């Protein structure tokens, strides 16, 4: 009985820490990873609440598919920022060449 209570308390604490870190970490990839871990732990919490149906849906949709969607979006954003950076560098380069020429 005591073990079960400690398991639940630990689960809640880890959930809160996981959620807090996922929201506050500046590294987006880490945030997505934490979100996926958070989803799996929420699924575990649903099992503890005796709702295995919800746990299955949470693990598959909330963690798995949403995680895949977020990773896909992250790749798209990184590509966009890379493009932006290279464009800015090219612009700086051209202004410098103009300056050198002038």
């Amino acid at each position, binding site marked *: 009985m005591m073990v079960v209570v400690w398991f639940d308390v630990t689960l809640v604490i880890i959930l809160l820490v996981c959620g807090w870190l996922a929201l506050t970490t500046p590294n987006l990839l880490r945030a997505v990873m934490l979100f996926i871990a958070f989803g799996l732990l929420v699924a575990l919490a649903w099992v503890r609440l005796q709702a295995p*149906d919800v*746990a*299955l849906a949470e693990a*598959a*949709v909330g963690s798995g598919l949403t995680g895949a*969607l977020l990773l*896909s979006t992250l*790749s*798209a954003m990184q590509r*966009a920022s890379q493009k932006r950076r290279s464009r800015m560098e090219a612009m700086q380069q051209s202004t410098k060449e103009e300056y050198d020429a002038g």
Partner: protein
Amino acid sequence: MQDRDFNRALQADDDTRLTQSRLLVLALATALVAGLAAAAITFPDDFGRLAPLALDSLPRSGVLNPVTAVLLNYRGYDTLLEVVVLLLAIVGVWAIAPTPRIWFKTPDTPVLATFVRLLLPLMMVVAGYMLWLGADEPGGAFQGGAVLGGVGVLWAAAVVWLPRAGRPFWLRLLLGAGVAAFVIAAVGLLFLRGNLLQYPPEQAKTVILVIESAAMFSIGATLAMLFIGGYPRREEAK
């Protein structure tokens, strides 16, 4: 257009100032949490519970799992609308996103390809088993559909497969099958029995199984297409 949106999102990510509008959002979110917490704490213990009624009616619902009974029988109308929401989601994505695209590159190794080839059939069997299990144990169309969606995502990401049919008739049929089966059942029963989605107890199991099967394929296809994103079209000649 897409790059501009991403740029804006990236800039917004760097911006952490507490502007007035953000404070308003923060206040509203805090008020919502406070209200929900207050409601949860002050909730009366002796509210009319529906659980005994739901459990007592199980023999007439056609299934033994109370969750499936609620989703597909007692509150079938809600589930019908949920399936419609999923269909609307993919219609919305197709309307906005320009082209289907897998944004990340997966390593081109035989290990991944073989693993996916071995795993996918197994996952499909698991999805079907979950659907069948849903009648008696936790499981059902949504869980099975989610596994099927995972099949689609893995397939698309590992094999870099994109549907490029000019007129994806079968794909659209798959996406609409769940809503179609549900609506046909609802309207048919409306004429036969006088009420929307009122199953005859003897045939309830069959009706639920048919609706759930169609819904599972639609949910799986919808989730996979949401991941791929964009309306599949024929590749333009270059």
